């Protein structure tokens, strides 16, 4: 019993460390690769860490009009994102906090963070904040049904909505990725990932003070350590969704347990797969232009259609 508890602790701490440490790196890699693909030199891969460090050391300006919601939001967003990250299988199929929630809990914890972020956007009274909140809530709402259809499909294939069981069912069956239902579901979830992490063509993560911005508009009034928490949480959310995508559909290298040589192997595989997915995202961001806001629903309708196709193909093939 005691041993089991210590094992759990080690898993939790390792995954927590991976989440916190790896997330800015993924952001940095994507930025640098994107710059290279556009024949710019781009920032150093480690730039996001430097940014976070700088922001944590700075002071902050709190808007006079803001209430306690403004101060509570960065913490709620950060904790809920990290907690969601501990519920997904990263290195081994067994998610450290799998008992506390499966894929639905992950989605709804991210939803909790988004809810408060949108409130804080409106809290300062700035029109930019309201604009960002309104768009963020609209787009995430429209992404939800496609995401749920894809997850239903995966859960039906694995016979479970528990992420540990989904990943466990997928280990050692690499053919599963090629099943039509899985491919459609993968495509649907990939589109949702783009919308949820605010990447081109839905939102441009590199803009400030443009009328097309979404996420950046919402957090415009934040500065210093609170901004650092929100930025960090955003990159953790991106890592969580990317990991969810690759480990549910392509679980190569995912380990059964957390210990020994296997864990190192698992981490190596995770890094390799994340790099590959980052490359795909970079390619997508470079060849596409940002869409008009009112074209985004069409993209999400495509995702929904793909999700429905995935569902139908579970019993056609």
């Amino acid at each position: 019993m005691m041993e089991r508890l210590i094992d759990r602790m080690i898993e939790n701490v390792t995954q927590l460390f991976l989440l916190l440490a790896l997330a800015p790196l993924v952001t940095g890699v994507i930025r640098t690769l994107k710059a290279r693909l556009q024949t710019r030199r781009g920032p150093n891969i480690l730039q996001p860490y430097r940014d976070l460090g700088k922001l944590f050391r700075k002071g902050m300006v709190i808007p006079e009009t803001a209430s306690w919601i403004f101060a509570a939001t960065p913490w709620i967003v950060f904790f809920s994102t990290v907690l969601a990250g501990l519920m997904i299988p990263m290195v081994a199929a067994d998610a450290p906090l799998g008992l506390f929630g499966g894929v639905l809990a992950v989605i709804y914890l991210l939803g909790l963070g988004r809810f408060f972020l949108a409130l804080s956007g409106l809290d300062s009274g700035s029109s930019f904040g309201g604009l960002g909140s309104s768009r963020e809530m609209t787009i995430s709402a429209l992404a939800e049904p496609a995401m749920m259809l894809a997850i239903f499909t995966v859960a039906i294939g694995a016979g479970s909505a528990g992420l540990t069981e989904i990943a466990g069912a997928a280990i050692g069956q690499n053919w599963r990725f090629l099943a039509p239902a899985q491919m459609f579901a993968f495509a649907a979830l990939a589109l949702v990932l783009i919308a949820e992490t605010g990447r081109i063509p839905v939102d441009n993560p590199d803009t400030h003070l443009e009328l097309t911005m979404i996420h950046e508009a919402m957090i415009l009034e934040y500065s210093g350590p609170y901004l650092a928490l929100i930025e960090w949480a955003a990159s953790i959310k991106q890592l969580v969704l990317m990991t969810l995508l690759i480990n549910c559909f392509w679980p190569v290298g995912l380990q059964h347990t957390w210990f020994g040589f296997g864990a190192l192997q698992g981490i190596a595989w995770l890094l390799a797969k994340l790099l590959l997915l980052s490359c795909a995202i970079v390619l997508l961001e470079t060849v596409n232009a940002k869409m008009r806001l009112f074209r985004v629903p069409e993209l999400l309708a495509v995702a929904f259609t793909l999700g429905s196709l995935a569902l139908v193909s579970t019993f056609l093939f």
Partner: protein
Amino acid sequence: MIAELFLSGIVVWLAGAMASLALWRQPAAARRVTCGAALAGSLLDLAASAAAIFSGSPAVIGLPFGNPVFTWAVRLDPLSAYFNVTLAVLAAAVSLYSFGYLREMEGRRNLGAFGFFFNLLLLSLALVFTASNAFFFLVAWEVMALSSFFLISFEHEKEKTRNAGVLFLIMSHAGSGLMLIAFLVLASASGSLDFSSFHLLASRMPALQQGVVFLLFLFGFGVKAGLVPLHIWLPEAHPVAPSNVSALMSGIVIKTGIYGMARVFFDFYGAPPVWMGTVVLAIGVASALLGVLYALMEHDLKRLLAWHSIENIGIILMGFGAALMFRALGHGNLAALALIAALYHTFNHAMFKGLLFLGAGSVVQATHTRNMEKMGGLIRRMPVTALCFLVGAVAISGLPPLNGFVSEWLTYQALLAGFGTTQSLTRLMFPIAGSLLALTAALAAACFVKAFAIPFLALPRSAEAAEAREASFPMRAGMAVLAVGCVALGLGATWFVRVFDPITQQALGVRASSALVMARGLALSPGTAHGGTISTAGIALIFLLAGAAFAVPLAMRWSRRSVKGPVWDCGLPGLTADNEYTATAFSKPLRMIFSALYRPRREIQAEFEVSPHYPSAIRFESEIELTFEKRLYGPLRERIMAMANRMKGIQAGSINVYLAYIFITLILLLLFGVRG
């Protein structure tokens, strides 16, 4: 013991009704008697029904009167007791709140009449939930409908209020008519009006009759529950009532429809055909989605909440529909899961919707408007109300770790498990319903960002909002009770699911809670083979620990480095409330995306003196179309009016003609009787 407690609750309510009527000339005394009696009656009812759930055998509460026409027949079985607990908790909180809320009306309105109908409403609700005889049930139902009508039209000097009251009355009676027919069909099959003689009776009837009775009950109770397309009275009637009444209306009165359906579907029917579950599931999805879509367009705070009641009734019906389908397909355990999801959500909705309406009531009393665009910044003026409203908003959006999340999670699990229960194409219903539930929940979250942020955050948008005063102590206490209820039902989910054992045992012969509770009560599992688990208590614990360990110390350290500054205003001189995002602007993207449904119409008129580029005044008007009201009820009303016009001919106004009518009717009935 249970019988004594229940009866004393009834007596206290009755006495409260009479006493406040008698005291109508002394408003302060009437207010105290009204609220005191309502509170005491609720607590007695709570004790009786909580004991009844776990007592094992249903408590039959007899009284030494009754005649062939009017029978006192009251039975507290687990299902009745569960709805009574819901009623009692909500009513207790609302009564507490009313101590403060009604004070404003003292001397301006007749509080004696209010107290009479208020206590009568609670009394009739308790009897609707416990009546075990069709006739007695319908009598209690009518008393409930009439006392609701008088409470809705309490502020009758406004024409809008009167119209809403009349609409409520018409719809309510249309529903009772359908129910009456259905009960008569059942009674003629069983030869008795007693509910116990209806047990599993409907399933033994011929298929056609079975289906017709099912639809009559579904639509009869559906009117009261506010199902789409029978919902049109709800967004009119709930907002115009005093806010404590709105809380009761949305929290529990519409649940009488849900109770009626539960009674019929899981007591009178055995294993209904699959199509019935399919119909219920489809109507549930439609209600949930349309309810939230119309709520998003609303900037009247109370109307917005009323539309959300339609949404939540839809979510409850999704659980019912799934339970019916599972029962038809022979999956008792899954049926129990879906039924638990629906009933859990029923209780949850009573808690958070009651809370939100009470919060809205405090806000409306402080700002004298229901229009959100004229509120703003209330979190500083009314901190307790704001916190309570926020708890309700998070709970209704289905976000962890509060109660709305638990019941929505159970609903998802039931829908997820449904796909494997059949090989026919009907199984596609489940994932599609699940994905539309996800859309509904996400849109509800968007709507409650608006419903909390626009009234409570940023700068006040009117002078009234800038000078709003916090609600009085009893009002805050009433809201706090419900807020604690939302938190407790979320964190204590593994404890609470045990309450459903006697209900599912009676309805389906399954006790599910041992399969649902895992890891020594830490986590909840759907009890299906592989469903994943959830631990709201664990999530809350981690939030608390992380908050205490990191957030508090770090925030204190950082606060030394922080300064207050003005908001970025693009260099314009100073930010005013006019620059803020409005509720209408917030939902504009959705209005454009779903324009096929809303058919929005807008009108902009700019007045200018020199050039159109420098307008001196702008008038903006925007409106959406309520499809059902216009396309379904509009023509229907015209048809009815035309028919009534044609029938005017037989109304001669002379007593001789009417006597002739009576005579002819009598002859016809006699002939009919002789032949039969």
